[in-house]
Protein backbone atom coordinates (compact mmCIF):
# COMPACT_ATOMS: atom_id res chain seq x y z
CA UNK A 1 0.00 0.00 0.00
CA UNK A 2 2.83 2.33 0.93
CA UNK A 3 4.63 1.65 -2.36
CA UNK A 4 1.46 2.38 -4.29
CA UNK A 5 0.98 5.64 -2.41
CA UNK A 6 4.57 6.66 -3.12
CA UNK A 7 4.20 5.77 -6.80
CA UNK A 8 1.01 7.82 -7.02
CA UNK A 9 2.72 10.80 -5.40
CA UNK A 10 5.69 10.51 -7.75
CA UNK A 11 3.39 10.38 -10.80
CA UNK A 12 1.41 13.41 -9.58
CA UNK A 13 4.63 15.31 -8.91
CA UNK A 14 5.96 14.44 -12.37
CA UNK A 15 2.69 15.60 -13.97
CA UNK A 16 2.80 18.93 -12.10
CA UNK A 17 6.47 19.39 -13.06
CA UNK A 18 5.62 18.65 -16.70
CA UNK A 19 2.79 21.18 -16.72
CA UNK A 20 5.03 23.79 -15.08
CA UNK A 21 7.68 23.08 -17.71
CA UNK A 22 5.12 23.63 -20.46
CA UNK A 23 4.05 26.92 -18.89
CA UNK A 24 7.65 28.15 -18.68
CA UNK A 25 8.31 27.06 -22.28
CA UNK A 26 5.21 28.89 -23.49
CA UNK A 27 6.11 32.06 -21.59
CA UNK A 28 9.67 32.08 -22.89
CA UNK A 29 8.61 31.35 -26.48
CA UNK A 30 5.92 34.01 -26.81
CA UNK A 31 6.51 36.29 -29.77
CA UNK A 32 7.41 39.84 -28.88
CA UNK A 33 8.42 42.54 -31.34
CA UNK A 34 12.22 42.71 -31.44
CA UNK A 35 13.70 45.83 -29.88
CA UNK A 36 14.47 48.81 -32.10
CA UNK A 37 18.22 49.28 -32.28
CA UNK A 38 18.69 45.54 -31.87
CA UNK A 39 19.51 43.04 -34.60
CA UNK A 40 16.82 42.12 -37.11
CA UNK A 41 15.91 38.44 -36.73
CA UNK A 42 17.52 36.49 -39.55
CA UNK A 43 15.53 34.43 -42.04
CA UNK A 44 15.73 32.71 -45.37
CA UNK A 45 12.50 32.28 -47.33
CA UNK A 46 11.34 31.10 -50.74
CA UNK A 47 10.66 33.81 -53.28
CA UNK A 48 7.28 34.24 -54.89
CA UNK A 49 7.37 34.69 -58.66
CA UNK A 50 11.07 33.87 -58.83
CA UNK A 51 13.09 30.74 -58.14
CA UNK A 52 15.18 30.14 -55.03
CA UNK A 53 15.35 31.59 -51.59
CA UNK A 54 16.52 34.92 -50.23
CA UNK A 55 18.23 35.39 -46.88
CA UNK A 56 18.22 38.66 -44.97
CA UNK A 57 21.92 38.10 -44.19
CA UNK A 58 22.72 38.34 -47.93
CA UNK A 59 21.52 41.96 -47.88
CA UNK A 60 23.91 43.10 -45.12
CA UNK A 61 25.33 46.50 -46.09
CA UNK A 62 22.08 47.67 -47.67
CA UNK A 63 19.11 49.35 -45.98
CA UNK A 64 16.11 47.01 -46.13
CA UNK A 65 12.42 47.78 -45.85
CA UNK A 66 10.53 44.68 -44.71
CA UNK A 67 6.82 44.77 -45.32
CA UNK A 68 4.65 41.98 -43.86
CA UNK A 69 1.42 41.64 -45.85
CA UNK A 70 -1.19 39.16 -47.11
CA UNK A 71 -3.53 39.13 -50.08
CA UNK A 72 -6.53 38.78 -47.75
CA UNK A 73 -5.55 41.91 -45.83
CA UNK A 74 -7.60 44.92 -46.91
CA UNK A 75 -5.22 47.69 -45.70
CA UNK A 76 -2.37 45.93 -47.54
CA UNK A 77 -4.10 46.75 -50.83
CA UNK A 78 -4.09 50.41 -49.93
CA UNK A 79 -0.37 50.57 -49.18
CA UNK A 80 0.90 48.33 -52.01
CA UNK A 81 1.05 51.12 -54.60
CA UNK A 82 2.66 53.51 -52.15
CA UNK A 83 5.36 50.99 -51.22
CA UNK A 84 6.04 50.33 -54.91
CA UNK A 85 6.46 54.07 -55.50
CA UNK A 86 8.79 54.33 -52.50
CA UNK A 87 10.82 51.38 -53.82
CA UNK A 88 11.16 53.00 -57.26
CA UNK A 89 12.28 56.21 -55.56
CA UNK A 90 14.86 54.69 -53.21
CA UNK A 91 16.25 51.73 -55.11
CA UNK A 92 18.83 53.85 -56.94
CA UNK A 93 20.26 54.65 -53.49
CA UNK A 94 20.69 51.00 -52.69
CA UNK A 95 17.58 50.53 -50.56
CA UNK A 96 16.02 47.06 -50.86
CA UNK A 97 12.31 46.53 -50.37
CA UNK A 98 11.16 43.05 -49.39
CA UNK A 99 7.57 41.95 -49.16
CA UNK A 100 6.90 39.06 -46.79
CA UNK A 101 3.66 37.31 -47.62
CA UNK A 102 2.19 35.98 -44.40
CA UNK A 103 -0.22 33.05 -43.96
CA UNK A 104 -1.40 33.29 -47.52
CA UNK A 105 -2.30 31.11 -50.48
CA UNK A 106 0.57 31.51 -52.99
CA UNK A 107 -1.75 31.74 -55.96
CA UNK A 108 -3.65 34.61 -54.30
CA UNK A 109 -0.35 36.31 -53.46
CA UNK A 110 0.73 36.17 -57.13
CA UNK A 111 -2.58 37.64 -58.23
CA UNK A 112 -2.23 40.42 -55.64
CA UNK A 113 1.31 41.28 -56.76
CA UNK A 114 0.29 41.39 -60.40
CA UNK A 115 -2.88 43.40 -59.73
CA UNK A 116 -1.05 46.03 -57.67
CA UNK A 117 2.04 46.15 -59.88
CA UNK A 118 4.47 45.19 -57.11
CA UNK A 119 7.92 44.62 -58.61
CA UNK A 120 10.18 44.38 -55.55
CA UNK A 121 11.04 40.87 -54.31
CA UNK A 122 8.43 39.07 -52.26
CA UNK A 123 9.03 36.09 -50.01
CA UNK A 124 6.64 33.43 -48.79
CA UNK A 125 6.15 33.03 -45.04
CA UNK A 126 3.31 30.53 -45.27
CA UNK A 127 3.55 29.26 -41.70
CA UNK A 128 4.03 32.76 -40.30
CA UNK A 129 7.21 31.64 -38.48
CA UNK A 130 9.22 34.68 -39.56
CA UNK A 131 6.32 37.02 -38.78
CA UNK A 132 6.24 35.47 -35.30
CA UNK A 133 9.92 36.23 -34.79
CA UNK A 134 9.23 39.83 -35.72
CA UNK A 135 6.27 39.90 -33.31
CA UNK A 136 3.82 40.62 -36.11
CA UNK A 137 0.34 40.43 -34.64
CA UNK A 138 -1.64 41.68 -37.63
CA UNK A 139 -0.70 42.66 -41.14
CA UNK A 140 0.40 45.02 -42.49
CA UNK A 141 3.49 45.80 -40.44
CA UNK A 142 6.71 47.29 -41.74
CA UNK A 143 10.26 47.34 -40.40
CA UNK A 144 13.27 49.26 -41.65
CA UNK A 145 16.65 47.55 -41.20
CA UNK A 146 19.84 49.57 -41.46
CA UNK A 147 23.08 48.63 -43.25
CA UNK A 148 24.38 46.89 -40.12
CA UNK A 149 21.30 44.73 -39.78
CA UNK A 150 19.73 46.70 -36.93
CA UNK A 151 16.06 47.61 -36.74
CA UNK A 152 15.52 51.35 -36.95
CA UNK A 153 11.77 51.76 -37.44
CA UNK A 154 8.68 49.64 -36.83
CA UNK A 155 5.42 50.75 -38.40
CA UNK A 156 2.32 48.95 -37.14
CA UNK A 157 -0.56 49.12 -39.60
CA UNK A 158 -0.56 50.58 -43.07
CA UNK A 159 2.22 52.97 -44.09
CA UNK A 160 -0.43 55.15 -45.72
CA UNK A 161 -0.67 58.03 -43.28
CA UNK A 162 2.68 57.07 -41.75
CA UNK A 163 4.82 57.89 -44.77
CA UNK A 164 6.86 60.34 -42.69
CA UNK A 165 7.85 57.49 -40.39
CA UNK A 166 8.85 55.33 -43.35
CA UNK A 167 10.91 58.18 -44.83
CA UNK A 168 12.58 58.82 -41.47
CA UNK A 169 13.44 55.12 -41.18
CA UNK A 170 14.91 54.91 -44.67
CA UNK A 171 16.96 58.10 -44.13
CA UNK A 172 18.29 56.73 -40.83
CA UNK A 173 19.13 53.41 -42.49
CA UNK A 174 20.94 55.22 -45.34
CA UNK A 175 23.04 57.17 -42.85
CA UNK A 176 24.07 54.02 -40.95
Amino acid at each position, binding site marked *: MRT*LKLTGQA*VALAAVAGLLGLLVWRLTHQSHPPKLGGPAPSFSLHRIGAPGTLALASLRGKPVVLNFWAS*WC*VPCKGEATMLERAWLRYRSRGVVFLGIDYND*VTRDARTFLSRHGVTYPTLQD*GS*GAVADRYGVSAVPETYVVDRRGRLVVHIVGTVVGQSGELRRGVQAALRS
Partner: protein
Amino acid sequence: MTLRLAAVALAALAFTASSAAACAHPRTSLSYLEGQIMCPTCHTTLDQSDAPAARRIKAQIGRRIDECWTADRIRGELVRNFGAGILAAPPHRGFDLLAWWLPVGGIVAAAALLALGVWRWSRAREEPPGADAALDDETERRLDELLARLD
Protein backbone atom coordinates in the same frame (compact mmCIF):
# COMPACT_ATOMS: atom_id res chain seq x y z
CA MET B 1 -35.37 30.65 -79.84
CA THR B 2 -36.40 27.22 -78.55
CA LEU B 3 -33.62 25.63 -80.51
CA ARG B 4 -31.10 28.06 -79.02
CA LEU B 5 -32.33 27.34 -75.48
CA ALA B 6 -32.12 23.63 -76.10
CA ALA B 7 -28.57 24.01 -77.41
CA VAL B 8 -27.55 25.98 -74.33
CA ALA B 9 -29.15 23.39 -72.04
CA LEU B 10 -27.40 20.58 -73.89
CA ALA B 11 -24.05 22.36 -73.70
CA ALA B 12 -24.50 22.93 -69.94
CA LEU B 13 -25.43 19.28 -69.46
CA ALA B 14 -22.45 18.14 -71.48
CA PHE B 15 -20.12 20.42 -69.48
CA THR B 16 -21.49 19.17 -66.15
CA ALA B 17 -21.26 15.58 -67.27
CA SER B 18 -17.71 16.03 -68.58
CA SER B 19 -16.48 17.74 -65.42
CA ALA B 20 -18.04 15.03 -63.24
CA ALA B 21 -16.71 12.31 -65.44
CA ALA B 22 -13.24 13.89 -65.45
CA CYS B 23 -12.79 12.69 -61.85
CA ALA B 24 -11.46 9.15 -61.80
CA HIS B 25 -12.20 8.91 -58.08
CA PRO B 26 -15.00 10.07 -55.77
CA ARG B 27 -14.80 13.82 -55.50
CA THR B 28 -13.88 15.12 -52.03
CA SER B 29 -15.85 18.00 -50.52
CA LEU B 30 -15.18 21.27 -48.79
CA SER B 31 -17.31 20.21 -45.81
CA TYR B 32 -15.13 17.10 -45.41
CA LEU B 33 -11.88 19.06 -45.47
CA GLU B 34 -12.75 22.24 -43.64
CA GLY B 35 -12.95 20.44 -40.30
CA GLN B 36 -9.40 19.12 -40.81
CA ILE B 37 -7.73 22.39 -41.77
CA MET B 38 -6.91 25.25 -39.43
CA CYS B 39 -7.32 28.93 -40.13
CA PRO B 40 -3.71 30.15 -39.69
CA THR B 41 -4.66 33.53 -38.29
CA CYS B 42 -7.51 32.64 -35.93
CA HIS B 43 -6.39 29.13 -34.85
CA THR B 44 -9.76 27.45 -35.25
CA THR B 45 -10.77 25.01 -37.96
CA LEU B 46 -11.99 26.48 -41.24
CA ASP B 47 -15.57 25.39 -40.58
CA GLN B 48 -15.63 27.63 -37.52
CA SER B 49 -13.96 30.61 -39.06
CA ASP B 50 -15.04 33.38 -41.34
CA ALA B 51 -11.73 35.24 -41.17
CA PRO B 52 -10.38 36.59 -44.47
CA ALA B 53 -7.50 34.09 -44.47
CA ALA B 54 -9.92 31.22 -43.84
CA ARG B 55 -12.16 32.38 -46.68
CA ARG B 56 -9.15 32.42 -49.04
CA ILE B 57 -8.14 28.90 -48.04
CA LYS B 58 -11.72 27.65 -48.48
CA ALA B 59 -11.76 29.20 -51.95
CA GLN B 60 -8.45 27.50 -52.77
CA ILE B 61 -9.80 24.15 -51.57
CA GLY B 62 -12.91 24.70 -53.67
CA ARG B 63 -10.78 25.33 -56.77
CA ARG B 64 -8.76 22.18 -56.14
CA ILE B 65 -11.92 20.12 -55.67
CA ASP B 66 -13.19 21.46 -59.00
CA GLU B 67 -9.88 20.36 -60.52
CA CYS B 68 -10.50 16.84 -59.15
CA TRP B 69 -7.70 16.90 -56.60
CA THR B 70 -7.94 14.25 -53.90
CA ALA B 71 -8.24 15.22 -50.23
CA ASP B 72 -4.68 13.97 -49.61
CA ARG B 73 -3.28 16.05 -52.44
CA ILE B 74 -5.11 19.17 -51.25
CA ARG B 75 -3.86 18.65 -47.70
CA GLY B 76 -0.33 18.14 -49.06
CA GLU B 77 -0.44 21.41 -50.98
CA LEU B 78 -1.71 23.28 -47.93
CA VAL B 79 1.07 21.80 -45.78
CA ARG B 80 3.67 22.89 -48.36
CA ASN B 81 2.14 26.36 -48.44
CA PHE B 82 1.46 26.91 -44.73
CA GLY B 83 3.48 24.26 -42.89
CA ALA B 84 2.23 21.27 -40.87
CA GLY B 85 0.50 23.59 -38.41
CA ILE B 86 -2.30 24.04 -40.94
CA LEU B 87 -3.55 20.53 -40.13
CA ALA B 88 -6.03 20.29 -37.26
CA ALA B 89 -4.68 16.87 -36.23
CA PRO B 90 -1.05 15.73 -36.39
CA PRO B 91 -0.20 13.11 -39.02
CA HIS B 92 -0.17 9.41 -38.05
CA ARG B 93 3.56 8.97 -38.62
CA GLY B 94 6.98 9.69 -37.18
CA PHE B 95 7.33 11.83 -34.11
CA ASP B 96 3.74 13.07 -34.51
CA LEU B 97 2.53 9.58 -33.58
CA LEU B 98 3.39 10.49 -29.99
CA ALA B 99 0.54 12.99 -30.00
CA TRP B 100 -1.87 10.12 -30.73
CA TRP B 101 -0.40 7.45 -28.44
CA LEU B 102 0.67 9.45 -25.38
CA PRO B 103 -2.92 10.17 -24.26
CA VAL B 104 -3.84 6.50 -24.79
CA GLY B 105 -0.78 5.46 -22.76
CA GLY B 106 -1.70 7.95 -20.04
CA ILE B 107 -5.26 6.64 -19.81
CA VAL B 108 -4.06 2.99 -19.69
CA ALA B 109 -1.47 3.81 -17.00
CA ALA B 110 -4.03 5.73 -14.92
CA ALA B 111 -6.55 2.87 -15.23
CA ALA B 112 -3.89 0.33 -14.20
CA LEU B 113 -2.91 2.42 -11.18
CA LEU B 114 -6.54 2.85 -10.19
CA ALA B 115 -7.24 -0.87 -10.55
CA LEU B 116 -4.19 -1.74 -8.48
CA GLY B 117 -5.21 0.74 -5.80
CA VAL B 118 -8.77 -0.63 -5.63
CA TRP B 119 -7.48 -4.21 -5.45
CA ARG B 120 -5.07 -3.41 -2.61
CA TRP B 121 -7.73 -1.43 -0.75
CA SER B 122 -10.34 -4.22 -1.01
CA ARG B 123 -7.81 -6.81 0.18
CA ALA B 124 -6.94 -4.65 3.17
CA ARG B 125 -10.68 -4.43 4.10
CA GLU B 126 -11.29 -8.16 3.74
CA GLU B 127 -8.49 -9.12 6.11
CA PRO B 128 -8.48 -6.80 9.14
CA PRO B 129 -5.38 -7.45 11.26
CA GLY B 130 -6.02 -9.91 14.06
CA ALA B 131 -9.61 -10.60 13.02
CA ASP B 132 -9.24 -14.31 13.59
CA ALA B 133 -7.28 -14.02 16.83
CA ALA B 134 -8.78 -15.98 19.79
CA LEU B 135 -9.89 -14.21 23.00
CA ASP B 136 -7.67 -14.64 26.00
CA ASP B 137 -9.04 -16.44 29.10
CA GLU B 138 -9.57 -13.29 31.15
CA THR B 139 -11.61 -11.53 28.38
CA GLU B 140 -13.61 -14.70 27.79
CA ARG B 141 -14.46 -14.93 31.50
CA ARG B 142 -15.55 -11.26 31.62
CA LEU B 143 -17.66 -11.72 28.51
CA ASP B 144 -19.39 -14.73 30.03
CA GLU B 145 -20.14 -12.75 33.20
CA LEU B 146 -21.62 -9.90 31.16
CA LEU B 147 -23.79 -12.23 29.15
CA ALA B 148 -24.95 -14.00 32.32
CA ARG B 149 -25.99 -10.65 33.82
CA LEU B 150 -27.97 -9.83 30.72
CA ASP B 151 -29.83 -13.14 30.97
